[in-house]
């Protein structure tokens, strides 16, 4: 079951020669995170052996419970790799839950129609932010901050109260189990893994992916090389908006309600997962696979705290903060060695 943990099959591995050592270095953060995940998992195994921690389902639940976070974090990875930041993730997720719940419950639209609409709205929001960022040269931080306010405000515009979804097709979709030997995944988890695979392909094997890295690495050089920088930038925020909306849909499935306060602050979790996964916040360096491990580590912290039983929920935040700190310092040490 832990085959997923060791396979940094990145395209750079094929590039021979002098750069090999440098690139090996670049992969190190991902390996460190993967190692940390393994260590945490093994510690969990030995500590809660008698409480069923070894069940394959516990491992699968990491994906089921964090699928939406994974999708959001993948979106954030694009933005961060391009050297930007997207603070609107949590709000877009919250808005999507609200929007979906409202359309399905109050307007009686079938979920099949609602899903593309929600995705379109999210992607369009991202596109708008990217457009403003690129065309008016306003800092991404501020523009996406406005996006954060806007989408959270729109949630509240739809309704102050949470809307629970009783629609049969939604609940059947939420309860569908994809069996994998001794364990199962939910549809949300499968979608998340598909998104991950697509993101790996796009970032590491397409021209668009290389442009994202180029712009994040050095915007000026990318411009001088004649890369269509504006389009890429806008596309990156559109991808992030789309991923956030998709994460919102998964979250809706997971929680089966819309609430104006859903996913408050989830952008922080997403950014934390990306950073723990070894992506440099300055952009240009990192792997989507690292983000997967970042999300898994965060998820594992949550499950360990659940298994521990006596620890209060706020320890999750403290542990996340401490981990973030450790990883940032490790990254710092590594980048300073490289230069």
């Amino acid at each position, binding site marked *: 079951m832990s085959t997923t943990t060791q396979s940094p099959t990145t395209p750079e591995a094929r590039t021979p020669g002098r750069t090999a050592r440098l690139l090996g270095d670049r992969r190190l953060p991902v390996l460190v995170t993967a190692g940390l995940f393994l260590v945490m998992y093994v510690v969990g195994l030995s500590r809660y052996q008698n409480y069923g921690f070894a069940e394959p389902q516990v491992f699968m639940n990491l994906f089921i419970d964090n699928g939406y976070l994974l999708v959001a974090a993948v979106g954030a990875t694009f933005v961060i790799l391009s050297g930007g930041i997207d603070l609107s993730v949590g709000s877009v997720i919250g808005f999507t839950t609200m929007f979906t719940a409202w359309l399905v419950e109050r307007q009686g639209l079938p979920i099949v129609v609602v899903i593309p609409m929600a995705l379109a709205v999210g992607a369009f929001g991202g596109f708008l932010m990217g457009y403003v960022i690129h065309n008016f040269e306003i800092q991404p931080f*501020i523009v996406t901050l406005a996006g954060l306010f806007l989408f959270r405000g729109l949630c509240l*515009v739809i309704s102050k109260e949470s809307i629970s979804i009783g629609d049969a097709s939604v609940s059947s979709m939420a309860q569908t189990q994809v069996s994998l030997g001794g364990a199962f995944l939910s549809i949300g988890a499968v979608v998340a893994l598909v998104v991950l695979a697509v993101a790996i392909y796009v970032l590491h094997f397409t021209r668009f992916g290389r442009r994202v890295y180029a712009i994040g690495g050095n915007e000026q050089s990318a411009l001088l090389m004649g890369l269509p920088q504006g389009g890429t930038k806008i596309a990156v925020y559109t991808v992030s908006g789309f991923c956030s909306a998709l994460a919102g849909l998964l979250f809706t499935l997971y929680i089966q309600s819309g609430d104006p306060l859903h996913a408050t602050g989830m952008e922080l979790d997403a950014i934390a997962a990306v*950073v723990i996964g070894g992506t440099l916040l300055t952009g240009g360096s990192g792997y989507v696979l690292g983000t997967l491990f970042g999300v898994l580590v965060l998820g594992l912290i949550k499950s360990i705290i659940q298994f521990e039983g006596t620890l209060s929920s706020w320890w999750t935040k403290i542990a996340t903060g401490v981990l973030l700190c450790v990883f940032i310092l490790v990254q710092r040490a590594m980048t300073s060695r490289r230069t």
Partner: protein
Amino acid sequence: MTTTPRWRALTHHHLFWPVAVLVLLLLVNVPFTPDFFSIRMTDGHLYGSLVSIVLFGSPLILVAVGMTLVIATGGIDLSVGAVVAITGALACSYLSDQTDQGALSGVLLAMALGLAAAAVCGLWNGFLVARMGIQPIIATLIIMVAGRGVAQLITDGQIITVNSEPYKLIGGGYWLTLPFSIFVVAAVVAVTVALTRRTALGLLVESVGGNAEASRLVGIRSRRIKIMVYVFCALCAGIAGLMISSNTSAADGNNAGLWIELDAILAVVIGGTSLLGGRFSVGGTVVGALVIQTLTTTIYTIGVPTQTNLVFKAAVVIVVCLLQSPKFRAKVFGARRSGAKGGGTPDTSPADAAPAPEAAPRMEVS
């Protein structure tokens, strides 16, 4: 419209746009509440919309002033909201353990404790940014994430209430007919302005923000300046935390100061301080914070459902940022020769959305 030199000088003053927005927002209120500008005396206290705007806005002003200096050095401090929560939690939990909550010494000690914790947070941020050379956004993200957990740890996940007259004074008391917090804010702003504009400190901060490495080579201890600025920002946040918890007589580790960092950054940006660092305007920040608070108040008074608050805020952020973006101005006003006014044009954004709930003034007056 002829653009006389004097008019042009006025519109090019760095405070023009922030003040214009503020005045506009204030005027919007008049048709809805004709006595908006009136201030009356009741029970020896001054009351009125203007007073309450300043009262409710005071924690934000404090945090934003601290944030201004951080941003001036080219940094950013995301941890202020968490620091607000930690300070309030620590002060209140210490105070609630005292047998005599009204004792002045106990209150002072509680406040000192809270501010000390804030200063430690600031030192940590400064250490990470200046010594370890970590990007400010990430360095302060650590306390932003972990800090709320710590605050909840201190309060044990509960909302701690205190009942102490002296403690109540900072955030909810009156002095010389005005809310006491106004004096605190005025003092902090005055000290900041004096320190940065009457001494070389402001210049040093700006030079560090302009180019930290060059400043260091010139002989400025840029690291020390950076650490100092983060400590100052955290202390401001600490005072704001005391104010918020004192106003409600309670510490809520989860919600105190939630999103205040975003509002503060917004205030700084509206005030005309560039996020790139190297230049700052404390006066602009104060105006910016007042704009945000006035916006909140306006939404209440004109009877728009309070839910739209956030949508409006988003619209204002976008409009203000667009107006400040040289590229946007060139595109929109460029045709009309360094156009005079025209704030209405970009208003197309999302302001036409409908109502929703949320967001009262940050502090509830009791």
